[in-house]
């Protein structure tokens, strides 16, 4: 271990903030369910109708919708860039192998759906979306899944993510202290064991409080 980089201490994870940007546009006013339904409808239509004109039209409309959502430009570009590059790459490949119509349909459809989904993410508060998720899970009561249990699971999971990220840092420091920070076993095994131990502590806490009785 001759060369040892000194890293600045890790910044705490900023939490699941996502792309949501608060504004008062018509898109923000729509209910999450309606927005998801619209994306699903567009996805089905574009999947089954292969027409370059439709793909280009849909992409134009989706970009107009994106513009009307008043999303922050920089964050949106950063979120969209990887998939857009992939869409262009796929389009070039299709152009070469199957002609330009197929290329336009494939990358146009892909880009449209990703833009629409980004609009949903950017205009819907995550908690409202999760509420919608729990409401959607209502019918699952029939097969024995209580929506409130789902809500509890979602809350527990969101709370656990930053805690596990912290745990990764601790485990890495511990492995480094033993000079084993290149050994995946010294990282993964303690991480998994402490994760399970944490889950059981949480489970015991839930049981002790009679939360699921």
């Amino acid at each position, binding site marked *: 271990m001759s060369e040892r980089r000194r890293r600045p201490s890790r910044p705490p994870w900023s939490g*699941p903030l996502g792309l*949501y940007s608060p504004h008062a546009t018509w898109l923000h006013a729509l209910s999450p369910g309606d927005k*998801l339904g619209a*994306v699903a409808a567009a996805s089905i239509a574009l*999947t089954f109708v292969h027409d370059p004109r439709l793909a280009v039209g849909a992409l134009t409309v989706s970009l107009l919708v994106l513009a009307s959502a008043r999303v922050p430009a920089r964050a949106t570009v950063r*979120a969209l860039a990887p998939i857009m590059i*992939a869409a262009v790459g*796929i389009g070039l490949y*299709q152009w070469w*192998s*199957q002609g330009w119509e197929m290329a336009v349909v494939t990358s146009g*459809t892909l880009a449209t*759906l*990703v833009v629409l*989904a*980004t609009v*949903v*993410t950017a205009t*819907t508060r*995550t908690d409202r*979306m*999760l509420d919608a*998720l729990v409401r959607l899970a209502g019918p699952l009561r029939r097969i024995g899944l209580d929506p409130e249990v789902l809500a509890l*699971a*979602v809350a*527990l*999971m*969101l*709370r*656990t*993510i930053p*805690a*596990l*990220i912290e745990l*990764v840092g601790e485990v890495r420091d*511990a492995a480094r202290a033993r000079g084993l920070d290149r050994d*995946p*076993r010294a990282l*993964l*095994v*303690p991480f*998994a*064991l*402490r*994760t*399970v*131990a*944490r*889950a*059981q*502590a*949480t*489970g*015991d*806490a*839930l*049981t002790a*409080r009679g*939360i*699921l009785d």
Partner: protein
Amino acid sequence: MTNSTVRTTPTPPLDGADPAPTTSSSPVLVKGAVQQPETGEPHAARRELTASSPGRDIALVSTFAALVAVCALLPAITVGNGLVPITLQTFAVLLTGAVLGWRRAGLAILLYLAVGTAGVPIFSNGRSGPGVFAGPSTGYLVAFPLAAMLAGVLVSRIRASVTRVRRTGLTFLGCFAASLVTIHPLGILGLMWRADLSFTEAVVTDAVFLPGDIVKCLAVAVVATAVVRAFPALSAPKR
């Protein structure tokens, strides 16, 4: 299971909403698992656990859903001399199956997908929302719950009495089989559907992931075996 020799130790006091990692027991667990004492039980660390209580199940499902999210968010780690960069997401999915059994594992992965689809940025590269199911990797995402469940079914068939080495080998085979039967075919279908690749092209694209897959399944086998040894009742058949 080897439960008969296990002593129950009192549960440490918990601080409810924010249970800290149980610092009293973790170091023992970690040490025991990494250095692997060949004989005798790792003493105080083992707690007798009922295989299934609603509280534990919910906690395990949520925690492993969070584990998958964390592994998708972490930058890829490199193994050896930096030749094989691997992201840990499939590792987490198969580990969930191997550790939790098919039922809880399936629920954990579905919870992960549902929360990610609802907009929390927990898919790889910090993506989120329903858009990922429109992208070329949709097949892989859809396959995750199936892979975890199949791995759970296969790994839970391993008898509790087998040696550690055998268990590791069998777990590897189970996870690799689960990945071959679910993740790769569905991934190929997804590539054909969303990227309009031909069958051969999709297979070639998918084959790039195979070597990494073998490494990940090996890691799952080692880690899952350590977890089963440290928490024997975790994967005990429920009845």
